[in-house]
């Protein structure tokens, strides 16, 4: 067990534990904070997988953007002054059974599959390669996503204004 593995387990534990709290805690603000940790842990796993740029984007977009958005949603839809910013859970037992079975069978599939592993070396910085790809082969997708984002934001703004 080397340092790399140790760090992996650390991050995996952080991610999964905080995700568990996200879905189980009754306080919605607390869930949002645990979500922050989950995103952070996932970003760490990205770094371990050699995806430095994606990790940074994960932090910036998720933590800096989406999470703030979610918290704003919480504040708008619940009376912030009231203490009871909570949300109950329903049908936990069938959900737990179903999800457990699902996890079990997927896990079994993963463990029983003989995965092909081609390259175990850590790659160099991915930034320039990703930039070239985005503006060469994937430029259409890139542009389309830009338009999609724009349309989505305009749509969201107009829907929220009504």
């Amino acid at each position: 067990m080397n340092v790399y593995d140790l760090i992996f387990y650390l991050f995996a534990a952080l991610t999964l534990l905080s995700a568990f709290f996200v879905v189980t805690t009754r306080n919605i603000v607390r869930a949002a904070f645990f979500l922050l940790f989950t995103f952070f842990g996932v970003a760490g796993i990205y770094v371990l997988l050699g995806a430095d740029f994606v990790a940074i984007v994960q932090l910036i977009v998720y933590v800096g953007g989406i999470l703030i958005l979610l918290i704003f949603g919480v504040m708008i839809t619940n009376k912030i002054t009231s203490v009871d910013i909570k949300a109950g859970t329903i049908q936990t037992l069938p959900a737990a059974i179903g999800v457990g079975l699902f996890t079990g069978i997927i896990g079994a599939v993963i463990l029983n599959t003989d995965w092909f592993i081609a390259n175990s070396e850590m790659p160099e910085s991915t930034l320039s390669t990703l930039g070239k790809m985005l503006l060469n082969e994937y430029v259409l997708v890139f542009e389309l996503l830009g338009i999609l984002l724009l349309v989505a934001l305009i749509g969201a703004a107009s829907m929220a204004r009504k």
Partner: protein
Amino acid sequence: MEVTLTHFLIVSTLLFSLGIYGIVTRKNAIMVLMGIELILNASNINFIAFSRFGNFGLQGQLFALFVIVLAAAEAAIALAIVLNVYKTFVNVNVDEIDELRD
């Protein structure tokens, strides 16, 4: 035990399951959205892991980036929908919104 692809996949599976659990059990629509974010992150881990251990370059990472963009758009739209739902039903409890049944 050396960490390989299987570990990452297990982590992503667990994260995915937790996301689904969140979606299914939460009453509050915002919490449901959080579950969805978890699911998206799980899929991103998968993309990047396969990108790392496969031999098809950085396409996996690229797709992860696209998913992040989609997630941003989705979050914006979903929150707008949640706001509209809130205006209509005064709360955002998903289990009480069952107009579809009738």
